[in-house]
């Protein structure tokens, strides 16, 4: 928590190490402060998590539906869904770049991949936080998991397959940069050599890499659609939950995933641009491209929201209507309208820039944050109101208010993600090293 302690270390390292690109191995004061804060938050999250493990989920705001008038799934599941959504955008963009050889966007590829890996790890921890018996969860899922539970898809495809594929993808792509950096004699040389794993950047190796990643990308794209749809099915197949049983769950799910992921990628790219001094590689073109993509997805998402709104307000009766009422005019209205306004304002900002063809990175970052806040709100609305207001038997309306433990765990997770990215940035170039560096080295 105190930056004073880490300060001297950083200056020493600064002196010791030869200069690597993108400030790798170069620990600045700002980075130290950021990491210290992130560590503190992670520590708090860990404490909250352990407290919950020792006392049980009674310390959360979660409770049973029905007579207890609560929601058994809350913030953890909302963020699980959110994190999985964020991962979508990362891997999609990375795969698109490879598949269609979009050279101008190449600088985004690694950070997109990283975002995917990190958010998937966070998603799996969020699952563990949600489980009443996490250790059993780890063991029993491997031991007994049943294919017909929609959870199986989430578990096998999303967590294991998707996470592993992204890791492989990230790793194979990093080998070249690691090999380049391993030529410098630094403290990180060992790590870089290890990651490079014998990569010498021969044309044959480059060729093999291109071929492998192409096939990987090809394999990942359909899988990620399936995986995200599966997560949609976790909700969409539930007949007993008004507001969930819907064919639109899966597509809307995928589109909102794209919105939040691209939004976050914009924020990350802007940070990298300024921190790593990558103004040339992460230029206006990159941001304009992201902005256009985000605009398209936001329009698509708002279209889904509109259709859902129309169907649920016109066609629905009974408990279905109760859930809609709770979301549109009831206790959850502020979240719904808050999110919707954020989306609309963001879209307006994007369209303005699109039409004027003047892209402002600061505005884009604000929009990126806005759509993510809105996405978190929407994830919450997917998960919670159908439980508190969607009982088909005449139970009283329930309520759910997260406790400090849940906020603690979720903040800890976010901080953990930020920490992981910050550390990664100091180890491996987060923007692929450009050609000229390559030329110099050889």
């Amino acid at each position, binding site marked *: 928590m105190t930056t004073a302690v880490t300060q001297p270390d950083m200056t020493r390292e600064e002196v010791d190490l030869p200069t690597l690109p993108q400030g790798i191995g170069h620990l600045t004061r700002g980075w130290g402060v950021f990491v210290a804060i992130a560590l503190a938050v992670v520590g708090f999250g860990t404490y909250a998590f352990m407290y919950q493990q020792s006392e049980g989920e009674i310390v959360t705001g979660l409770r049973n539906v029905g007579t207890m008038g609560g929601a058994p799934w809350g913030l953890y599941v909302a963020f699980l869904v959110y994190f999985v959504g964020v991962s979508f955008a990362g891997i999609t963009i990375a795969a698109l770049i490879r598949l269609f050889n979009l050279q101008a966007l190449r600088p985004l590829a690694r950070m997109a991949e990283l975002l995917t890996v990190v958010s998937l790890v966070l998603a799996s921890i969020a699952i563990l936080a949600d489980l009443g018996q996490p250790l059993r969860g780890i063991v029993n*899922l*491997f*031991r*007994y*998991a*049943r*294919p*017909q539970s929609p959870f*199986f898809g989430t*578990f*096998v*495809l999303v967590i*294991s*397959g998707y996470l*592993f*594929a992204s890791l*492989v993808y990230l*790793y*194979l792509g990093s*080998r070249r940069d690691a090999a380049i950096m391993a030529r410098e004699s630094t403290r990180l040389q060992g790590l870089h050599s290890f990651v490079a*794993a*014998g990569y010498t950047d021969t044309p*044959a*190796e480059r060729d*093999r*890499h291109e071929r*492998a*990643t192409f*096939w*990987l990308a090809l*394999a990942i794209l359909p899988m990620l659609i399936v995986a995200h749809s599966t997560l949609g099915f976790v909700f969409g197949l539930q007949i007993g939950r008004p507001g969930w049983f819907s064919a639109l769950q899966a597509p809307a799910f995928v589109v909102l995933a794209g919105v939040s992921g691209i939004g976050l990628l914009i924020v990350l790219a802007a940070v990298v641009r300024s921190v790593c001094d990558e103004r040339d590689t992460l230029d206006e073109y990159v941001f304009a491209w992201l902005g256009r993509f985000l605009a398209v997805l936001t329009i698509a998402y708002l279209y889904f929201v509109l259709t859902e709104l129309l169907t649920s307000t016109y066609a629905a009766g009974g408990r279905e209507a109760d859930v809609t009422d709770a979301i549109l005019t009831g206790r959850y209205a502020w979240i719904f309208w808050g999110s919707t306004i954020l989306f609309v304002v963001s879209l307006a900002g994007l369209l303005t820039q699109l039409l004027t063809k003047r892209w402002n990175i600061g505005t884009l970052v604000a929009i990126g944050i806005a759509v993510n806040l809105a996405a978190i709100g929407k994830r919450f609305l997917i998960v919670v109101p159908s439980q508190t207001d969607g009982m088909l038997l005449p139970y009283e309306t329930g309520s759910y208010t997260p406790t400090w433990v849940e906020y603690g765990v979720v903040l800890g997770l976010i901080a953990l993600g930020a920490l992981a990215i910050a550390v990664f940035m100091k180890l491996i170039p987060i923007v692929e090293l450009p050609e000229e560096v390559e030329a110099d080295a050889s």
Partner: protein
Amino acid sequence: MRRRTLTLLCLLTGLGLIVVSYFFLTAPWGSDRVGNSNPRLEYAPLLTVLGVILTFASAVVYELLPDKDKSGEP
């Protein structure tokens, strides 16, 4: 040749594991019988996950396997 063989082996083993464990070793489909709540082979889901991992690991095998020619070089 060795690279391609090993990669293919890894890939096919992975896919095979997925198919075999998913369709024949995990719990049978249908939910109306006691037996359907248990996998036919305990830890079959672990095999499925291993299969997925092997499938993607084949790319690592493909890229990382040292070249025979290279190792022969002085």
